[in-house]
């Protein structure tokens, strides 16, 4: 260990390059490596033709569009909960867009930065209807299936511990194993983020026999991450996300993005690089915003297509509605 310490002290401070190493690497490679879930309907899952779909996958495309002007220049890297941070830390992926909860420890000790919140979620429980349960507290003494290495695992322990309730954790590494265990009655309840439960329930053989309890036991703000220490790349991810949300607020859609450049609203014209240098400030082209919106649409469109009424999941906007409509989606202005 002292060798490690000596090396740590002895090595000179070779840091502080202003340019973006990640952006340069991605440009040179010509493709964005984007870490996504191994398969979660609505967030990131390959469809029948093998194309990755979902709101997380769309965010990868949005960033690719911002960088290359082409949303298809993405290589999707499926990662399970255990692999995801190491993959980003080690540079295997440039961006992690994988329903990951923004927590302080993850933001401060992993060498990673969250770009913002793409989806406000909360942890819920799925149980068999035949059990006739009304609330989570009735699960005292139950076996509960949960995915390892998630905030869900920690919240579960906290929740039952503070209420003095006992439970038996049954943990697996992959979500598909958790679901299989729940389905074969290995456990009485399956806990994860509420949106994931909705998605996983559609994969059960008998979805109508299962219900999701109304209680949410935690806040799960899910968002994309990048490596810490590359401010330019961090800005690109963050402002791509803010662009999607602002676009919805301003009424910019996939369809009208092209013509909005000449909108009478100066705020909208600015976003699209008319008389502004926002793109260059990010290290991108001035028309980055047009590419992004033309590729995936605004936040609301991406939501409806992947999670909302246009999808099999039919999740309500709820907390994920714009702040102007009583939700939590609020992006700093682009100006």
């Amino acid at each position, binding site marked *: 260990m002292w*060798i490690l310490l000596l*090396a*740590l002290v002895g090595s000179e401070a070779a840091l502080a390059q202003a340019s973006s190493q990640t952006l340069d690497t991605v440009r040179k490679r010509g493709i964005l490596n984007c870490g996504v879930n191994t398969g979660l309907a609505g967030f990131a899952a390959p469809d029948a033709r093998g194309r990755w779909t979902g709101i997380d996958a769309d965010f990868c495309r949005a960033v690719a569009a911002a960088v290359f002007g082409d949303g298809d220049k993405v290589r999707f890297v499926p990662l399970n909960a*255990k692999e995801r941070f190491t993959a980003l830390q080690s540079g295997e992926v440039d961006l992690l867009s994988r329903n990951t909860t923004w927590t302080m420890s993850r933001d401060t000790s992993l*060498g990673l930065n969250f770009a913002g919140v793409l989806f406000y979620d909360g942890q819920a429980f799925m149980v068999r209807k035949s059990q006739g349960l009304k609330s989570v507290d009735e699960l005292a003494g139950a076996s509960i299936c949960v995915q390892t290495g998630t905030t869900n695992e920690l919240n579960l322990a906290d929740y039952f511990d503070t209420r003095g309730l006992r439970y*038996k*954790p049954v943990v697996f*590494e992959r979500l598909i194993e958790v679901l299989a265990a729940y389905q074969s009655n*290995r456990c009485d309840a399956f806990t994860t983020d509420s949106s994931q439960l909705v998605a996983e329930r559609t994969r059960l053989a008998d979805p109508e026999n299962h219900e999701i309890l109304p209680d949410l036991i935690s806040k799960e703000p899910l968002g994309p991450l990048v490596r810490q220490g590359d401010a330019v790349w961090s800005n690109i991810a963050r402002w791509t996300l803010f662009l999607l949300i602002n676009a919805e607020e301003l009424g910019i859609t996939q369809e009208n993005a092209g013509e909005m450049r000449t909108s009478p609203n100066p705020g909208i014209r600015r976003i699209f690089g008319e008389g502004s240098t926002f793109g260059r400030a990010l290290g991108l082209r001035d028309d980055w915003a047009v590419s992004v919106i033309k590729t995936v649409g605004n936040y609301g469109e991406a939501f409806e297509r992947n999670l909302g009424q246009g999808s099999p999941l039919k999740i309500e906007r709820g907390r994920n509605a714009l702040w102007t409509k009583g939700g939590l989606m609020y992006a700093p202005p682009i100006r």
Partner: protein
Amino acid sequence: MRSPDLKRWREPATWKEAAYDPGVRAAVFQVLLALAIAFLAYEIVSNTIENLRKQNIASGFGFLSETAGFDISQTPIPYSSKSTYGAAFLVGLANTLIVAFIGIAIATVLGFTIGIARLSPNWLVAKLALSYVELIRNMPLLLQLLVWYVAVLRTLPFPQDALALPGGGFLDVRGLHLPRFSLDSGGGILLAVLALALAGAWWLKRQAGIDREAGQTVPTRAQRVGWGLVIAVPTIAVAIAFAASSVSYPVLGRFNHEGGLSIEPEFLALVIGLSTYTAAFIAEIVRAGLQGVPRGQREAAAALGLSRRQALRLVILPQSLRIIIPPLTNQYLNLTKNSSLAVAIGYPDLVSVFSGTVLNQTGQAVEVILITMAVYLAISLATAAFMNWFNKRTSWAER
């Protein structure tokens, strides 16, 4: 071996001569290789540290004393979500050791039985043993674990419809639920009496040795007292312990069987899978060992009038052990290392708990992997050391 030419070695006449000296050459290359390895190691370590520092990833082993915050399903040592990551590590380690220990015990018994059965004169028994070996050892272990876990144990009934076992036990999809004997205050008495009995036995054995030296052949006084001790003391001890202990039976609660001793299906699947798989390899080693004993030994045993069974137990098996033990050590090591496949079926072993959950919750990949590697190395070396010692004890004294 080349006899050392000391004079020449001490004073090489010229540098040129020294350069052609095989001893000098070997030494130079050794030093060069050692330097190259040291440089490589230094590069790897300093590179890793530099990269971690650049990315602001916290390093060091301080995280081990932080609160873990997650629960573990099977905790042979006290643990709760309020315990530390260090405690979680110990739980994972204990679970690995338990599986390895029980797995090795079962695999050894099963492996020896099947290995001996392969050489049975009974055609059916021999062919059954052969089929077992060929079927089990030619299928990937991971697949077998999944078969045991998913195809066998997952199809068991709900707790409400659990299969009742004789003696108050139950078997359901949540595992095996057995009555648990708690020794309470009886445990102390039992331990004390056992310790006393062991000490007595050791003394008696010494006494008997002295008597034998002195030419005693009839049962000695010590032996007679010994029999009394062997039978009477444990009986009394067990009786007292039972009187002072309690039994808790598993009872069906709202969701699960509560109370008693619960053995989780993940553990069952892992132990069954590991021991049946390793047993197939041990069986082959045992067969080879038995066949390696010269035929003359068998004939000599027969000539002495020993039965097949006696010949096997008294003549063949002891001699074959020296052939069996070295490869057997490998199988023990394999079983221990293979137990890390537990992660596939959710048994909380070291890999699953520590280099899985803890790594993920803390992000301390380098430290966690280093510790895990060190632990497996230590377990393997300890097993090998024990088996080498055992091997030395059972091997022939060369004459």
